[in-house]
């Protein structure tokens, strides 16, 4: 299968995404510069982490206007898989491909640490090979990861089964203590209604290289591969 990894000025997790998908998962992967106007036959697009456009105005706010985003949006609307990681999640909410917004962490601190997340929805292409309620150790590194949506939006997320990951402790308890940034309902990742677009704040590409001992993130890439190959 083939990934396209979008690079904006200021993206910095593109190489990690490429390294994991190409060299650890053994899939094809290509970089796409944000000014390009065509994709390269992807099965899945990754919008990687970083600080696109320096997070100027709001994180992801300017990236949404880059030429390539027209193609990314069209690809998503046709049902293509899109995975936004960290800044990528922010870009996806700014474009409207995902609902809600990522706000400043309630602590006002940039938080960089290992984090447990619980997989609460295995009915997506990104989590279909993971058992329901599995706890994954996937690092976070962000200043604006505090997910917010209004009451009607939250009800829609719940009714449509769109919440995928929630921050939790090592025993899987989802509570305020284990919520690193104040995210509503400890939401760490969601999908759109059609479940082909995923946004997540944690970095699965930082939890997939065996040399780092923890490879929980691989389960997400394996799920994607399984979905595409079926």
């Amino acid at each position: 299968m083939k990934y396209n990894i979008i690079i904006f000025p200021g993206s910095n997790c593109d190489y990690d995404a490429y390294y994991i998908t190409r060299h650890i998962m053994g899939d094809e992967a290509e970089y796409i510069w944000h000014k390009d106007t065509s994709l390269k036959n992807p099965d899945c697009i990754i919008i990687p982490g970083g600080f696109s456009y320096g997070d100027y105005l709001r994180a992801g706010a300017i990236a949404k206007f880059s030429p390539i985003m027209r193609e990314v949006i069209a690809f998503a609307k046709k049902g293509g898989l899109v995975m936004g990681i960290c800044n990528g999640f922010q870009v996806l909410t700014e474009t409207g491909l995902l609902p809600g917004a990522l706000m400043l962490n309630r602590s006002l601190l940039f938080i960089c640490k290992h984090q447990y997340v619980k997989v609460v929805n295995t009915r997506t292409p990104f989590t279909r090979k993971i058992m329901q309620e599995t706890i994954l150790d996937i690092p976070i590194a962000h200043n604006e990861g505090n997910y917010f949506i209004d009451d009607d939006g939250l009800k829609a997320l719940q009714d449509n089964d769109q919440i995928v990951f929630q921050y939790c402790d090592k025993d899987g308890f989802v509570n305020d203590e284990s919520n690193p940034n104040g995210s509503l309902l400890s939401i760490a990742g969601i999908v759109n209604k059609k479940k082909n677009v995923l946004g997540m704040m944690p970095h699965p590409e930082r939890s997939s290289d065996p040399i780092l001992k923890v490879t929980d993130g691989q389960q997400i890439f394996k799920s994607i591969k399984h979905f595409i190959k079926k």
Partner: protein
Amino acid sequence: MIKATIYVTLKPEVLDPQGKVIKTALDTLGYHNVKEVRASKMFEVTIDSETDTIEKEINEICDKVLANPNIETYTFKIHD
């Protein structure tokens, strides 16, 4: 040339941790009578436009770029 001052503010129901910290700092300095602080953004925009279309244009600029409608609202003043 028309100058406009645009204020983009967090919706009242949205938590503002920056505002909270600023209030705490003021409290530490002895300003105990400050009850709440909300931090906002202000943009000064100079547009070459007509007076009858300027409001519509500023609304569009705000809706599309300057404000995130999920969490922010805006007001603006047009200067003659």
